[in-house]
């Protein structure tokens, strides 16, 4: 290194606006590198041909019509939770309580199915399930928002803590409704009468959540982008002080938005209990309330980009299960690959936000697009 100390070997500059195509190219490049790294790790640690692993990941998600349907169903569930959280994230209200809001929605639906399933006509039961899911989910969003409005509490902590309360409530009712006694399991609710089971659309078990997800995606996009509420949310997110200055009632926006966010999570609880599992367990959300935070961030709070990010997560998860079965590997191996791919996807945002320059010897280093091998 005989540099005179004037120009460092690498230096970074903040990029201005980057064309979307270029940003996409950088992301694609990151995924390609991630796949190469995964291939090396697979080959070195298991001795299995990485191509076979990749093809069985694809087979795990799309190997049969049923597998494809389940993949899309799982994407839909994760997507709706992510969209619900996004509404709150847009106003920089960090709702980490998706898990609890989903559970409360599920609890409301299960309560109606168990207590009213054989007493009221099916349509009435389903309407009551919908109402109680939305109300309970909304309530779980309302409480932290109220605390924030009244006492300026930290919403990250309070929404997180609400999850544990919801889990304990579900556990309590699981023991109350368990069959047989002592088993700690509710089992399929109304397995013979199907009371309170959400209808199958066009004879498909998997279609309902997918349609709900499409509607919610469009709704959230329009709500944030084109409505007065959405405008207020964005202003609050950009600068609470400005919003007060322009006459937006901060407390009202917090509370209204969190009720909506919680209610949408509650809707997922309804889908999980009434439409998919037909039972209630404390693990029915399976951590998706937290995964959705990642999905939302990776998509930079863009509802349509979230379709892609939730797809990546579900696709890899389904693939992980398949390689566990096919190669007698532990599911954790699939999770390692997912971790590597996410690392690169998230890491490449750095190269979208910053430009990397290498010392070229010339005074004005021509801008290079990427620096893959650093």
């Amino acid at each position, binding site marked *: 290194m005989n540099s005179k100390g004037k120009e460092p070997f690498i230096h970074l500059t903040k990029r201005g606006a980057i064309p979307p195509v270029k940003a996409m190219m950088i992301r694609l490049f990151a995924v390609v590198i991630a796949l190469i790294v995964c291939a090396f790790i697979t080959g070195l640690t298991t001795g299995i041909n990485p191509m076979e692993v990749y093809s069985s990941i694809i087979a795990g998600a799309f190997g*049969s019509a049923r597998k494809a349907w389940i993949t899309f169903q799982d994407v839909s569930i994760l997507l709706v939770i992510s969209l619900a959280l996004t509404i709150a994230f847009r106003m920089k209200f960090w709702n980490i309580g998706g898990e609890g809001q989903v559970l409360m929605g599920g609890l409301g639906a299960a309560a109606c199915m168990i207590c009213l399933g054989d007493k009221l006509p099916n349509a009435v039961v389903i309407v009551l399930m919908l109402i109680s899911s939305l109300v309970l989910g909304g309530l779980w969003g309302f409480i932290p928002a109220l605390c924030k409005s009244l006492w300026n509490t930290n919403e990250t902590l309070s929404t997180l803590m609400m999850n544990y309360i919801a889990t304990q409530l579900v556990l309590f009712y699981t023991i109350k409704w368990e069959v047989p006694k002592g088993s700690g399991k509710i*089992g399929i609710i109304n397995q013979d009468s199907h009371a309170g089971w959400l209808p199958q659309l066009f004879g498909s078990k998997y279609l309902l959540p997918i349609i709900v997800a499409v509607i919610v995606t469009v709704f959230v996009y329009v709500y944030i982008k084109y409505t007065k509420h959405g405008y207020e949310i964005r202003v609050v997110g950009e600068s609470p002080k400005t919003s007060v200055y322009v006459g937006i009632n901060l407390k009202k926006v917090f509370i209204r938005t969190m009720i909506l966010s919680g209610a949408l999570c509650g809707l997922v609880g309804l889908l999980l209990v009434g439409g998919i599992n037909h039972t209630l367990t404390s693990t029915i959300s*399976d951590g998706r309330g937290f995964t959705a935070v990642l999905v939302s961030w990776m998509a930079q709070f863009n509802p349509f980009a979230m379709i892609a990010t939730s797809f990546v997560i579900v696709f890899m998860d389904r693939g992980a299960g398949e390689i566990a079965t096919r190669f007698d590997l*532990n599911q954790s191996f699939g999770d390692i690959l997912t971790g590597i791919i996410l690392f690169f996807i998230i890491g490449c945002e750095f190269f979208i936000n910053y430009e990397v320059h290498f010392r070229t010897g010339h005074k004005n280093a021509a801008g290079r697009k990427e620096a893959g091998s650093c």
Partner: protein
Amino acid sequence: MKKIISLLLATAMTIGLCACGGAAAPAAADAGADQGSDKLNIKAGFICLHDENSTYDLNFITGAKAACEKLGVEAVIKTNIPEGQECYDAACELVDQGCGYVFADSFGHEDYMIEAAKEYPDVQFCHATGTKAHTENLPNFHNAFASIYEGRYLSGIAAGMKLNEMIESGKITADQAKIGYVGAFTYAEVISGYTSYFLGARSVCPTATMEVTFTGSWYDETAEKEGATKLMSDGCVYISQHADSMGAPTACENAGVPNSSYNGPTDSACPETFISYCKINWEPYFEDSITKAAKGEAIPADYVGTLETGSVVIDHFGKNVAPGTEEAVEAAKADLIAGKLHVFDTKTFTVEGKELTSYMADVDTDPNYEGDHEVIKDGYFNESGDGLRSAPYFDLQIDGITLLDTAF
């Protein structure tokens, strides 16, 4: 977050795994399996709640692999399948892949297996620990369990012998012979387990008493460890458990309190305090039911593996076991097989001070937990009886056992 937790658990369980690896392969029984050179034309699918890091699931995976290898049948094993619609999906995917036999290992899988069984009448669905096959009237849905209460009784004898040794050496007095037991739920399977274990211990140590605490989870290392510690501070001088983590055995090893385990021996992790263990060997059932499914023969709605079929295994004791234990256990085992000895002999226990002459057990699953079958027969409680169901239904609270908390 969940992944991190499971990773930590995996690390913790490695110790337990080593223990299982060291166990001698149990003598395989030839329960109804008449394998010749003819290969069975069937593919077998297995659905497991967790993966091989859980001692419970490892026990099934080991049995499934051994049975399929023996029969020359291809096995497809799906792990980490939750007790929800995922189980139905997994079962259907296995059928899509050409499996003519599908097995699920966890209690909560049952309803979803029934859903799949209704949809695919040509495929045989078998389920461990379930309670509904005998009332569901589906010709292709079957339950299986084992008379593990006999194994626990024998394991209890080893505990009683150890208590006697402690009394003789002056370590404790006769009325301090209190056993602690960490259970998962107040479920009949657990109640049947600790009661049989206690009766085994009391059959050799007449002053033995027992205290039971519940964790409300089948796998909660911290709660199980805390439960065992609580029992020890309550004066329990011997601990056993019915939950799937190493929590209680580890607490015992740290405190130097002897312990009996389940699913597998723990002597590599707890060399000083491991005394006895019992487990269910699923290989005989897999061989039997897969063979029948392949040949189109009827699989019974309820299958109860026994000491005789090699399904109930107690074959290995710790180094600090009391002298004469193995002989005593072998003698009792022979008597159990011969039918001379019954674990739940009504002469050996009382309920609220009275000997039991009649009891209606909740054999048929219903939301009101109503008793529906008389289970006292020829002077003993007929656990997992013929014509009833394979999963345990002994849910009586007998004298001598104190339940500390029954919230679960």
